[in-house]
């Protein structure tokens, strides 16, 4: 999992056991989760490219205050852009409006191009802010934070189990895959490949359920009563409050400017 989630100790509450956290990492995770959500909601509602760009710069500044590896983050953003690039390229040609240029007889409109740019900037700003505020915490911290923010406990427990077993099952998958490789399996475009992958995944499901049975037995043996104690030392300090106020002020300024721009023009 360390390679999956980018942490040395993904299952510990403390981020990066021993290391001193980055500037953003020192704030209360609850503030960071709420801030990321508010930022996402507000940015999605922005209408002007200028202010969306402002949000993107804001996200980039936050990013520079974390100790996330730049290359990995950029790679993740590029992967996200890969999802939407087709849609963005098509938008200018499908939006009616003032024609700008034409390729192969298809007219590209100015409005469509602007819309595509706006969508692209908004998507990148939200993802960048989310990665910089949230992906620095371990999955377990995220679970504890959501629990403290009054998410349903069953959902939080479910998430903690999922996080715990993703690495185990990913290893299991690699073991099965290695066994297939040793028997000369090569992935190609044929029915045999798809059948083999199906058997592989079916086996993974069966084994994971057998594992779950053992886990439940072990939990019952230790007197599991339907509740996990949440051990952490989340404390809302004065600087967390200051961070919240500063963040909120910036976001409100962004929204007000966006609204005023619409009214003024």
């Amino acid at each position, binding site marked *: 999992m360390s390679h999956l989630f980018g942490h040395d100790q993904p299952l510990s509450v403390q981020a990066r056991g021993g290391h001193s956290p980055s500037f953003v990492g020192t704030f209360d995770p609850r503030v960071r989760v709420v801030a990321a959500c508010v930022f996402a909601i507000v940015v999605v509602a922005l209408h002007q490219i200028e202010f969306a760009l402002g949000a993107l710069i804001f996200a980039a500044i936050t990013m520079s205050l974390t100790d996330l590896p730049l290359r990995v983050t950029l790679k993740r953003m590029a992967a996200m852009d890969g999802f939407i690039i087709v849609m963005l390229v*098509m938008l200018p040609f499908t939006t009616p409006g003032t024609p700008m240029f034409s390729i192969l007889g298809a007219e590209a409109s100015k409005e469509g191009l602007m819309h595509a740019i706006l969508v692209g900037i908004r998507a990148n700003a939200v*993802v960048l802010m989310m990665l910089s505020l949230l992906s620095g915490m371990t999955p377990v911290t995220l679970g504890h934070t959501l629990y403290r923010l009054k998410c349903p406990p069953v959902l939080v427990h479910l998430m903690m189990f999922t996080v715990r077993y993703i690495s185990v099952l990913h290893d299991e998958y690699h073991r099965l895959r290695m066994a297939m490789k040793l028997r000369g399996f090569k992935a190609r475009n044929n029915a045999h490949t798809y059948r083999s992958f*199906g058997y592989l995944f079916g086996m993974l499901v069966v084994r994971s359920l057998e594992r779950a049975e053992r886990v439940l037995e072990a939990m019952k043996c230790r007197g599991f009563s339907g509740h996990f104690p949440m051990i952490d030392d989340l404390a809302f300090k004065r600087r967390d409050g200051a961070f919240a106020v500063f963040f909120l002020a910036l976001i409100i300024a962004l929204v007000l400017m966006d609204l005023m721009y619409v009214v003024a023009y």
Partner: protein
Amino acid sequence: MHIVDGALAPEVLIGGGVLAVAGLGLGLRKLPIDKIPATGVLSATFFVASLIHVPVGPSSVHLIMSGLAGLVLGWTAFPALFVGLLLQAVFFGFGGLTVLGVNTVNIAFPAVLAGLLFRGMVSRSNPVTAAVLGGCAGAFSIALTTVFVAISLALSGDAFVPAAKLVFFAHIPIMVVEGLVSAASVYLIAKVKPALLQSADQTSGFEMQPTATLRAKQAGEASNG
């Protein structure tokens, strides 16, 4: 398959969020505390499915297996798939926060529907028929997911309609592959551990024995008295 932040209209985002909360509520209600380990481990399994790449033509796609998730988990597939999407969004940047509701509905609802439609038939049939039905469930849930994605795009503006159509047609090979892989998976499960495909009331293996708890309680009371 993931929609990103910033593309959809606010109405679609809010609608998706409301539907996702409703689905989560329903799914969590069907999730007793002693089924959490099984559901969590299966949720992790379906997360791993998204890391498995299968060749399709010159390129490759990752598995989704939502049809199988619906068959095995029923309504609890909703929270299970939501958790996977949440982890992907927060730690990998796939999808986004405001579209989390829409993405969850788009992927989990077809899974649940496939489970409701095919589970009864699958649990009653022999492995070969079960495999065919499982393949149908796998392809069906992907098809429905792409339809849902297309609808969410089309509802956000007419300019997205061509993109929505493209999404649908681009996913036809993925439907076929998912169907084939799901069929093989269901065949193996039906042979190796058929109890997994039985409906929830038939599998009592995971539920705490009520008599045992009762006996323990009585024993405790007896010692106190």
